[in-house]
């Protein structure tokens, strides 16, 4: 059911349906091309160019006094929203096909469904000997009546023949758009623009179709439409839609005023106006627009849907659900409201009802990829283990739960207690936390589509979805950091009534990670210092917009976390609480800052600059691009530059790498050592610490290699390879603190490594921490360890240490089932049943 580029091809073989098509085989295309352009089409073309004046002129100057002129006039009236006037003009023209079509569409648009359908049915049933305009009428009627296959068959026929007709290509694009085939739609709009580069519906359609995948191209299309048709209400509707998405509500309202200046009584305009009004006010503020739209068409859910969409974008999912319920009530037979409601319910945790709504939607519109994906995802979710714990409901796969739950639940409890204390706030629950073993399920849970590369977790207020460590797409990550981060969002979103700006909620979550574990949330220190060196940091003014730019978003998170830290430094926790409360009351940054800190935004900007300069200034200086440029292979020049610029990291690394290439390890070590001193956070396998560690291993200095790896892991907390190497090295060196540290780090990053849990458990038991040992041994056993006899005996010994003799006996028997002569298990058994005083024989 997934849509792809194959749909066009698939549909092209759909049998032509209906009498009309059978009659149309006579191929009248050539006739139409030779005839003079009919008035209605000329007017439609002028309107398609957004040129209302030209359309009016054509009508006024027409010498035809009959129905054709009346229809053309009605088209202009419809464009201007003078719907009653148009209806009155069209109603008497029962024999004119254009009039019947437009009247039918008009009636549907006003909620007079039976009348509209009857008229459109006449178009389908009575057509014969059709020209291109006739086919186009047929396609539009079929589309409006929901006969998608018929409409597509017609477009398939005229679309491939009438490549010079922008209205045909654009109409076909609209049909693809309606069936969620964005790529196909974009192709049709491009075909339309080839036929007529000024065809506004195609420019706007392309802008919509390309918005997800090619936002820059989409923006260019809209800009072109604005340039070509600066008075077109359709252009300003889309402009307002984009402005709403950018949360520029004042601009959106101004754009909608331009729509209203040309076109009155537009439900689309009312819908967006309602969204803008709600966004800056309350749900009640949108009621007049809801009422006005209902008067125009009581069965049109557009206003409720726009409100729901806006509420969702503002993370006010409870409001979104309320609005979507209004949409469903308004138009129960339409798919969109049901899919909206299902989607929003997923974000408020109402998964059972969400499934019902999504299934209803899918029955009404089987082309909706997102709904299909969500239903598939719910199938996955249905098999998850559900664990209720205090304010939390956890859902995780049956495979992961036996291990992950033991770590995730205590961590979530700890985070909750910490945040309640810090933010002085108890969030609305239950807090649903879903942890997915495959990234695409997480992506669908979050955005309806697979992909979402780069995201690891998402919070919708009291619903959290996140990747499990098994879902890592490219590299390892700290799932614990992600969980800590997302739970912070629950508090900051709810405490601010979902009005906290994104930079602050993300900044606080990232900063909370750092507070919990120093390297968490600070993975991009080197990149940030390099940005500072280039003078490219954002500061508060550009921070919000940087979150909307995919190329900047990672660094925006980083800087936001620094800003959050600075805000707490200068105002304490009370100031953070005050900020959230101010946003909840509707304040903007200046007012909220003034109340929290007694300072204006510019003063805080200045102190923040000083804060970052103090923390990263030296590192930024070391990361400045060196001069002069030297070729990679020019060892002598690289050496000279490194000597001349001992404080420049890049010079030292370039020379070190060249020396390494030349097999001069001593020189490489000197250069990398200087680089390491200049940039302590420089991690990664190409960084100075990793290279120095490799060189230390090569010369047999394992202690030095271990020291370097230990340092790396202080900064690069998610470097699983370095952690595993440190486990091996520290075990060889019998360096107990390093063994404990590295085992814990590996278990944090890869909790599904049974042997690591066994090793950790044994160390915990040796350190007389049987509770922690139990946790590790249980994890090892759940994961299928290398040696079951060992694993059961380990667990039994931990039980014995805690005095749980029956449990110890059970585990001893389990071990002896595998290996009846296993001495350690035998001794455990004897101790558990009181035959000896000791534990195992290890």
């Amino acid at each position, binding site marked *: 059911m997934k849509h792809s580029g194959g749909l066009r091809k698939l549909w092209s073989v759909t049998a032509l349906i209906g009498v009309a098509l059978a009659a149309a085989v006579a191929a009248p295309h050539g006739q139409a091309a030779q005839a003079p352009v009919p008035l209605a089409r000329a007017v439609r073309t002028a309107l398609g160019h957004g040129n209302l004046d030209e359309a009016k002129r054509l009508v006024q100057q027409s010498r035809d006094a009959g129905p054709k002129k009346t229809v053309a006039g009605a088209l202009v009236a419809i464009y201007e929203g003078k719907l009653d006037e148009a209806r009155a003009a069209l109603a008497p023209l029962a024999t004119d096909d254009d009039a019947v079509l437009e009247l039918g569409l008009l009636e549907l648009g006003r909620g007079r469904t039976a009348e509209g359908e009857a008229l459109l049915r006449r178009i389908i049933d009575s057509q014969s000997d059709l020209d291109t305009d006739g086919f186009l009428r047929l396609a539009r009627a079929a589309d409006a009546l929901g006969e998608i296959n018929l409409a597509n068959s017609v477009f398939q026929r005229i679309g491939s023949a009438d490549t010079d007709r922008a209205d045909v290509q654009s109409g076909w694009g609209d049909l693809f758009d309606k069936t969620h085939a964005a790529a196909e739609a974009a192709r049709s709009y491009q075909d339309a623009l080839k036929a007529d580069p000024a065809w506004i519906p195609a420019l706007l359609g392309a802008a919509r179709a390309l918005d997800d995948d090619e936002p820059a191209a989409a923006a260019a299309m809209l800009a072109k439409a604005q340039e070509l048709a600066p008075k077109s209400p359709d252009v300003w509707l889309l402009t307002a839609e984009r402005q709403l998405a950018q949360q520029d509500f004042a601009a959106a309202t101004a754009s909608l005023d331009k729509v209203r200046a040309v076109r009155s009584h537009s439900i689309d305009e009312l819908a967006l106006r309602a969204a803008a009004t709600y966004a800056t006010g309350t749900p009640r503020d949108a009621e007049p627009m809801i009422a006005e739209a209902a008067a125009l068409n009581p069965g049109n859910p557009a206003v409720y849907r726009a409100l729901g969409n806006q509420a969702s974008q503002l993370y006010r999912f409870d409001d979104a659900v309320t609005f979507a319920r209004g949409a469903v009530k308004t138009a129960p037979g339409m798919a969109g409201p049901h899919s909206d409601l299902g989607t929003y319910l997923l974000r408020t945790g109402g998964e059972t009802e969400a499934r019902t709504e999504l299934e209803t939607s899918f029955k009404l519109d089987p082309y909706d990829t997102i709904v299909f994906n969500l239903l598939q995802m719910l199938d996955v979710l249905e098999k998850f283990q559900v664990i209720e714990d205090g304010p939390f409901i956890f859902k995780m796969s049956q495979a992961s739960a036996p291990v992950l739950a033991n770590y995730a639940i205590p961590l979530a409890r700890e985070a909750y207690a910490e945040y309640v204390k810090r933010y002085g706030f108890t969030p609305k629950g239950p807090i649903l936390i879903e942890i997915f073993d495959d990234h695409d399920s997480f992506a669908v849970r979050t955005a309806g589509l697979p992909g979402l590369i780069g995201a690891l977790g998402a919070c919708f207020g009291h619903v959290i979805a996140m990747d499990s460590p098994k879902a890592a797409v490219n590299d390892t990550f700290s799932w614990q950091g992600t969980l800590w981060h997302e739970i912070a969002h629950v508090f900051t979103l709810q405490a601010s009534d979902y009005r906290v700006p994104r930079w602050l909620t993300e900044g606080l979550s990232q900063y909370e990670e750092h507070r919990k574990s120093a390297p968490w949330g600070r993975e991009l220190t080197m990149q940030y210092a390099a940005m500072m060196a280039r003078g490219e940091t954002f500061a508060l003014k550009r921070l919000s917009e940087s979150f909307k730019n995919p190329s900047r978003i990672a660094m925006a998170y980083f800087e936001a976390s620094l800003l959050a830290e600075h805000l707490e430094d200068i105002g304490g926790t009370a100031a953070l609480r005050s900020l959230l409360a101010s946003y909840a009351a509707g304040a903007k940054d200046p007012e909220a800052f003034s109340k929290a800190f007694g300072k204006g935004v510019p003063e805080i900007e200045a102190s923040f600059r000083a804060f970052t300069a103090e923390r990263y200034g030296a590192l930024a200086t070391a990361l400045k691009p060196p001069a002069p440029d030297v070729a990679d292979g020019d060892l002598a020049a690289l050496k000279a530059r490194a000597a001349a610029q001992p404080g420049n990291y890049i010079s030292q690394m370039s020379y070190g790498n060249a020396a390494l290439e030349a097999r001069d390890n001593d020189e490489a070590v000197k250069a990398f050592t200087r680089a390491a001193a200049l940039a302590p956070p420089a991690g990664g396998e190409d960084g100075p610490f990793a290279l120095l560690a*490799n060189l230390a291993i090569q010369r047999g200095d394992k202690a030095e290699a271990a020291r370097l790896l230990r340092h790396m892991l202080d900064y690069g907390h998610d470097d699983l390879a370095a952690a595993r190497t440190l486990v*091996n090295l520290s075990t*060889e060196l019998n360096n107990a603190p390093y063994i404990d540290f590295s085992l814990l780090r590996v278990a944090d990053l890869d909790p599904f490594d049974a042997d690591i849990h066994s090793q950790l458990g044994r160390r915990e038991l040796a350190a007389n921490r049987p509770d922690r040992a139990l946790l590790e041994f249980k994890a090892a056993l759940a994961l299928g360890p*290398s040696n079951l006899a*060992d694993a059961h005996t380990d667990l039994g010994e931990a039980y014995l240490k805690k005095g749980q003799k029956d449990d110890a006996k059970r585990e001893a028997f389990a071990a002896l089932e595998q*290996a009846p*002569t296993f*001495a350690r*298990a035998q001794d455990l058994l004897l101790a558990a049943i009181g035959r000896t005083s000791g534990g195992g024989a290890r």
Partner: protein
Amino acid sequence: MLRRCGWMAGAVLAVVAFAAPAAVAQTGQRYALLVEGASGDEPHAELQRKQINLLVSRFRDDYKLDANHLIVLTSAPQPGEGKATAVEVKAALAKLTAAVQPLDTLFVLLLGHGSWDGTDAKFNLVGPDLTSDDWGGLLKNTAGKLVFVNTTAASAPFVKSLAGPNRIVITATNTPAQKFDTVFADAFVQALGASTADLDKDQRISMWEAFAYATRLVRQTYEQRGPNVMSTETAVLDDDGDGTPRQATGDGKDGTLASLTFMDAVVASRPADPELQQMVQRQEQLVLEVDALKKKKAQMGADDYRQAWETLIIELATVSHEVRARIK
């Protein structure tokens, strides 16, 4: 660069008297041919040298193989080693197959590179290579048990060429199309001495246990290389002679002979203390009773079986504990 620093070393198993009463004693002599083939480049040469050294140490020092029973051929021979050429391989196998008697065991392990040209699978030697069928022919007249382990890429066809009665054939891959460097060699070498490979805790590692543990290590290695790294090798074992091998975690008829085959030495001396002798005999008797009870499990009620089993196991544990206390 720091992605992997080798396997975590497992403790070498000690060969302990009395502690493994259930182990099947091998009454014949043990022979081994270890071949480290052409390495190709310096990194492979270093890795292969490390592996062959470990392997030689295992057979010579831990398994106590008679020096005359162990032949080592390498790409860059050190003292006591021969050159890994086809001529030397043929000579070594001629010598060993002539020496091996029906109750003896011959262990052959190949380290290095393998290839598949669409017709023949070859183990790459210094100079001309030998095909799987060549190896089959050279070992055709082995009178005793044969353990043949090819740890190289594209080694799958060696199963068909070598399989037969009283033979255990292990290959790193299950199809000749698996042509990438394997990690199975490293894993198998480690498995022969890893205490965690000893699944039944009898203080010995059977060929099945080594194969199963090495398979697990291979899987872990690929998992640890990253979520998008797909394993390019699947090790298999055949020991029923039909040439249809099985994987360690899959279904299959193979495994019995390999579970009963060991390359280590069992010190089978008896204690001088008569009381201890009696205790050891009782210990051995109890192990046999546990084994016998297991075989009757299907015919018994679950509760009856459990009760009988627990009684035996507790007695075995008690006697074994006393034996250990005495030996100390």
